[in-house]
C-alpha cells in the first residue's frame, strides 16, 4: 500500500536498529512514549524485538480511554439510561468499567448506546432522530477535541435542539508535568505525541527540555517513526543537546494548526480541576464547554451523579500510566484483570499499555523468544 509500506520497511528498520544499538551502547536507557497510539504501534509491530536490551520503552499516560476516571463513566451511564436518549461514543469507551458495569452492560440492559467513528456521526443521528436526545461522550486529547468543537459549532449553526456533548477532553501537557514532578521516576527522554502535536505544535513541550532537562522527539505512528524517534533522543543526549525535535515533519508544523487551536479556544474553556484515572486531580488539565455553548453541554442538560468513585484497590493503573510499573508488574495483570474482564482502564483500550502488552506482547521475552524465533 503506497505511502504506508515505506514506513514499515524491514530493511530500513534493521539498519536503524543497528544505529540505535551503536548509539546506545554502554548505558541503560529509558524513553517514555507519551501517546497510547505509539504504545499500540510498538506492540503491533513488535518494535521491542529490534531494540537492544539496554533500551527500554516506558509507556506513558496518553491513552484517552485509560485516563477516564470511574466516576465519569458512571455519569455517562446515567445519561445513557435516561429515557429517550441515544448515547454515542467511540467503540473503546463502551467496555470501560465504571462503579457498576460498563456502557456495554448498560446497552445490554436496554440503553440505546451506539458506537460512532466521529462526533459528526452523532450529529447525523441527532438530525435523523429529532424526537430523541442525542448525546456524544467526548474523550481524547487535543487530537480529537477540535472535531468535537467543530461538531458543536455546526450544531449551534443549525440550531439543533436535541444534541449535546458530555465533555471529557483533556490536555497533554499537565500529565507530562505531573510525571516529570513525580519523584520515583527515571527517564532519559520522551517520544512526544504526534497527533496531539499536529494541533498544538511542538513548542508546548519546550519546558520538558528547558526546565526538566529531558530531550523530546515528536514522532509519528508508523514503526519506523518510533525507531527514528528513539535514535534521535539518544543522540541528543550523546551530543550534549537537550531540545524538542520534530521527527514527524511530514504532518506536524512547529506551530501546530492555528485553525484547530482557534476552534478549541472558541468552544472550550479550561476546567479548574479534572480527575485523571490513577493520577488524581490535575489543575487546568481538561476542557469544558464555554458558557455560550451551555445548551450543548450534557453535564448541564442531564442529571448525573457526579460522584468521585475510588479506583478498585487492586488496580495499579496509575503506576502503569506514570511508567513506574510495567504492565506485568501490576498485581492483577492477566489474572483478575484481562481484556475480557478489565479492572483498570489500561486493559481496555487497544492503546492501553496493559491491553497492548497482554494482546500482542505476551511472549516477547527472552526465554520464549528463543523457543519461537528460531
Amino acid at each position, binding site marked *: *500500500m503506497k505511502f*504506508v509500506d515505506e514506513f*514499515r520497511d*524491514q530493511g530500513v*528498520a*534493521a539498519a536503524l*536498529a543497528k544505529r540505535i544499538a551503536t548509539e546506545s551502547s554502554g548505558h541503560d536507557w529509558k524513553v517514555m512514549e507519551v501517546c497510547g497510539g505509539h504504545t499500540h504501534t510498538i*506492540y*503491533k*509491530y*513488535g*518494535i*521491542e*524485538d*529490534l*531494540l*537492544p*536490551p*539496554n*533500551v*527500554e*520503552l516506558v509507556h506513558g499516560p496518553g491513552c484517552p480511554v485509560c485516563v477516564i476516571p470511574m466516576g465519569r463513566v458512571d455519569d455517562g451511564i446515567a445519561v445513557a439510561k435516561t429515557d429517550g436518549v441515544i448515547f454515542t461514543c467511540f*467503540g473503546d469507551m*463502551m*467496555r470501560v468499567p465504571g462503579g457498576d458495569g460498563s456502557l*456495554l*452492560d448498560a*446497552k*445490554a*440492559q436496554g440503553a440505546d448506546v451506539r458506537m460512532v*467513528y466521529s462526533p459528526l*456521526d452523532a450529529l447525523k443521528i441527532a438530525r435523523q432522530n429529532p424526537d430523541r436526545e442525542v448525546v456524544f461522550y467526548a474523550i481524547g486529547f487535543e487530537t480529537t477535541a477540535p472535531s468535537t468543537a467543530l461538531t458543536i459549532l455546526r450544531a449551534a449553526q443549525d440550531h439543533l435542539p436535541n444534541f449535546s456533548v458530555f465533555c471529557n477532553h483533556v490536555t497533554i501537557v499537565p500529565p507530562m508535568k505531573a510525571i516529570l514532578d513525580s519523584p520515583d521516576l527515571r527517564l532519559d527522554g520522551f517520544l512526544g505525541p504526534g497527533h496531539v502535536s499536529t494541533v498544538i505544535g511542538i513548542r508546548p513541550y519546550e519546558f520538558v527540555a528547558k526546565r526538566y532537562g529531558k530531550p523530546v522527539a515528536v514522532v509519528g505512528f508508523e*514503526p519506523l517513526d518510533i525507531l527514528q524517534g528513539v535514535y534521535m533522543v539518544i543522540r541528543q543526549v550523546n551530543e550534549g543537546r537537550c531540545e524538542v525535535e520534530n521527527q514527524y515533519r511530514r504532518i506536524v508544523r512547529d506551530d501546530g494548526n492555528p485553525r484547530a487551536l482557534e476552534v478549541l479556544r472558541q468552544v472550550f474553556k479550561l476546567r479548574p480541576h479534572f480527575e485523571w484515572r490513577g493520577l488524581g486531580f490535575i489543575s487546568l488539565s481538561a476542557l469544558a464547554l464555554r458558557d455560550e455553548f451551555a445548551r450543548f453541554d450534557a453535564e448541564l442538560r442531564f442529571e448525573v451523579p457526579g460522584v468521585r468513585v475510588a479506583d478498585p484497590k487492586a488496580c495499579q493503573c496509575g503506576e502503569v500510566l506514570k511508567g513506574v510499573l*510495567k504492565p*506485568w*508488574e*501490576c*498485581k492483577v*495483570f*492477566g*489474572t483478575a484483570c484481562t*481484556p*475480557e*474482564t478489565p479492572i483498570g482502564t489500561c486493559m481496555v483500550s*487497544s492503546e492501553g499499555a496493559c491491553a497492548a502488552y*497482554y*494482546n*500482542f*506482547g*505476551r*511472549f*516477547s*521475552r*527472552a*526465554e*520464549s*523468544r528463543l*523457543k*519461537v*524465533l528460531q
Partner: protein
Amino acid sequence: MPASESSRVGKWSEQEVLDRIEAIRRRAPRLRDEAINMAHGAGGKATHTLVEALFRPAFGNPSGDAALLSLEGRTLAVTTDTYVVSPLFFPGGDIGELAVNGTVNDLAVAGAQPLCLTAGFILEEGLPVETLRRVTESMAAAARRAGVSLLAGDTKVVPRGKGDLLFLNTTGVGEVRQPERLGLAQVRAGDAVLVSGTIGDHGTAIMLARGDLDLETDLESDTAPLHELCSAALEAGDVHLMRDATRGGVATVLNELAAEAQVAVAMREQEIPIRDAVRGAAEILGIDPLYMANEGKLVAVVAAGDAKTVLAALRSHPLGEQAAIIGEVRAEPPGMVFMHTAFGGSRVVDMLIGDPLPRIC
C-alpha cells in the same frame, strides 16, 4: 519490553507471571455476564466462552464445523448455521447466497461432500415479498452451484419491530468418505498453514456496505462454496485439518486450533494475502483484517512435505488463485498464535475480544 532479570513482582519474575497467565487461560472459561451482549455473537472470546461454558456442558457435543454421524457403514456430517446479516443485499452477494454457501462450507471443511440442506425463515411483518423472492431465487441458484438440494423448510413471521426483516437458518447434511483423515488429533508440529486466498474481504465489504463509514471501494464479499476447493486439497496431499474462516476471521480459527490441539501457530505477516482495499479500510478504521470475516476462504493445515503440492492444487482452482502458505504449526508455546511482523518484530495474535464489528453473517 526487554526482560530485565532483576525486575520481579513479589516472588514472581516476568516469565513466571506470564506462565501463570497461560495456565489461567487454559482453564475452562466461566460465563460471568448476566445478559447477552453483542460480543457474544462476534465470534471471538465471548462467543467461545458462551459455547464452552453454557452449550457444551448442556449438550456434550464435540467441536468442529460439523458433527459426524455413523449410519449403516456410511459417515454423515451435519451442521447448522443462522444468518442475520445486515444489509440483506451487499456487494458480491446477499443473505440467501450466504446461507447456502456458509452451510455448504461447514460441511466441506469437515471433508464431506454436501448433499442437502433445509432452510428456516424468520420474516418480519412488512418485509416486501419482492425482497423475499430475490433471496429465495438467490438461495436456489447457490444450491444449484454447490450441487445440493433444498429438501425442507419452515416459515415464521414475527411482528414488526421484533426482527430485522429477515433471518435465515440452514441445516446441511453431507457424506464423509474418509472420516479418520481430518481432525485436531492429526495436527502436529511442523505442519504448514495455508489460506485459500485474500482474507477479510467479506467482513470489510459488509462494514462498508452499511454506509455508516462513508468509505467507498469496489470491494465485494467473497461468498462462495468451498466444496471443490476442499476436495482438491484433500486429493493433492496429506491435509490434517480444514476450517472455514468466517466470523472472527483467520486469527480466531487459528486460536481455536492452537487451544484445542495444544500447539503454537507461527504466522509470517508478509505471506498473508490481503487486498489493498481491505488493508486500507482496516488502516483507517483501526481494525485488523486477521479478525475480519471471510465467507469463501479455507484455512488448511497440511503435512509439511505436502504443503507445496496442496498449494499448487488450491491455486489451480479459480477460488484459490491467491492461496498462500502463511505459517506453520509449532510445539511451543502451546495454545498461542503469534506472528513475525513484516517489520522484523514479533507479536501475539490473540482471539478477538469484544465486538468492534457490525453483524456480518
